[in-house]
């Protein structure tokens, strides 16, 4: 059964005078307040509690927690022989709604392959992280699973990632 009927809460005298409901709400928030305060105090004294007093992740100090399938920065994949998988078919560049991908093609030395990417630039300052490029790619050359979300830079120029950087061959460093 896909439809689950939910009965509306009835309006009784108890809920209409509101005072009891206020008290019930306050009981919940007071419980949270005092339980969390107790946990904070115990942890400050070095006593282990069942749960922490807060669910906050202190982000810059503690690393961000990402799901394994989180859609993060793009990554270019390589074939078994170490060459980039990209065949410069331009499907990703064509489908990109933000027009943030720019590919130039060249002849591939391998006679079985028609062409390959000479340059492959993604401007992350324009990217909207829709994932269409990953969907469009026929050869599984691009994925968005680099598990990297810290993508800020001081200049617009530094928001553009080139092919070696996307392949992971060269670390991304600001251009001087």
């Amino acid at each position, binding site marked *: 059964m896909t439809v689950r009927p939910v009965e509306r809460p009835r309006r009784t005298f108890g809920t209409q005078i509101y005072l009891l409901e206020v008290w019930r*709400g*306050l009981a919940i928030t*007071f419980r*949270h*307040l005092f339980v*969390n305060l107790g946990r904070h105090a115990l942890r400050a004294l070095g006593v282990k509690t069942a749960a922490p*007093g*807060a669910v906050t992740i202190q982000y810059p100090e503690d690393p961000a927690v990402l799901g394994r399938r989180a859609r993060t920065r793009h990554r270019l994949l390589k074939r078994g022989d170490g060459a980039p998988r990209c065949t410069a078919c331009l499907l990703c560049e064509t489908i990109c709604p933000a027009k943030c991908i720019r590919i130039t093609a060249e002849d591939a030395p391998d006679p079985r392959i028609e062409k390959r990417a000479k340059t492959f630039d993604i401007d992350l300052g324009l990217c909207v992280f829709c994932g269409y490029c990953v969907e469009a790619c026929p050869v599984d050359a691009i994925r968005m699973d680099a598990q990297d979300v810290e993508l800020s830079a001081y200049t617009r120029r530094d928001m553009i990632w080139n092919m070696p950087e996307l392949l992971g061959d060269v670390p991304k460093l600001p251009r001087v």
Partner: protein
Amino acid sequence: MSLALDQAAWTAAKVVFAIFGFGLGIAGFLGWVERKQSAVMQDRIGANRASIFGFRALGLFHPIADAIKMLTKEDFVPRGADKTLHALAPMISLGAGLFCLAALPFGGTVTALGRAWDLQPIASPVGVPLVLAVLALGAHGIVMAGYASGSGYGLLGALRGAAQMVAYEVCLAASLAGVLFLYGTLDLQEAVLWQVRHGLWGIFVQPLAFLLFLTAGAAATKRAPFDLPEGESEIVGYHVEYSGMKFGMFLMTDFVESIVICGLVTALFLGGWSVPGLNLPGMGALGGLLMAASFSVKVLLLLFLLMQIRWTLPRFRFDQLLDLGWKNLLPLSLLNFLATIWGIYLWR
């Protein structure tokens, strides 16, 4: 030094303490309480980054950081605004709230150093109506702010502020009718002394009046669940065109008004400065200190409760607020008043 000059200096010292020490001090502290209390009850940590030489002190420096930020921000007045009224509005709002603080009974009269010291800054035989009237003046600041901003959203917030005042202001005074009739005085100090004489706090004689006044008082502070003039998520409200310290003054007004309401509740319902079992007026200077401490602790506990309510309840819709004021609080206040009169008549 002549006696009159001495008296004037003492009064000035009391007023300065009430406004700057008690009022603005607690108001600044409340900014921290607001952030931390809401954070802990929502399983968060709350603001904890502001530090001095690496000391974070649980985020206690955030009010200072906020004040510095507001003082150094651009003070922007929109083109269509009335410059004079725009600048005057926050002063009226905050000034009215701060004045009320000076009329609160922080303590009774104690004898020390060979003379009597009255710890109430501004003693008035009509203390309760005085505080209520000046507190109501604060609403003028809101209407003025919205009207002078030259902004539709500001005006909307101002209108909501005016309508809210209509909803709570009558009940605010009416709910006190019974308890004041019982005490037989309009003087806040006399009300405290009545409770001391009878060894009975007002909350036990007039529990309904306590609830009604606390509700109407919460509406008077313009904080959730009665933050209709602001309505942050919808219209931002009367202070939408304010920036810098002028906005900070409006922010402060809410806290100061909360302190005033809690001070009134303390004086009228929680025995004011008295501590059960202790004869504070007879203890000299120590008694005076204990009076101020007892009053402050009661006010802080009430503020804690109001803060908890503010972070628990959702905002009332407009018709719900007017219904609450006119159809529930006012009839109950009048019934309470009638019952009190009959009670006193039959008991005598």
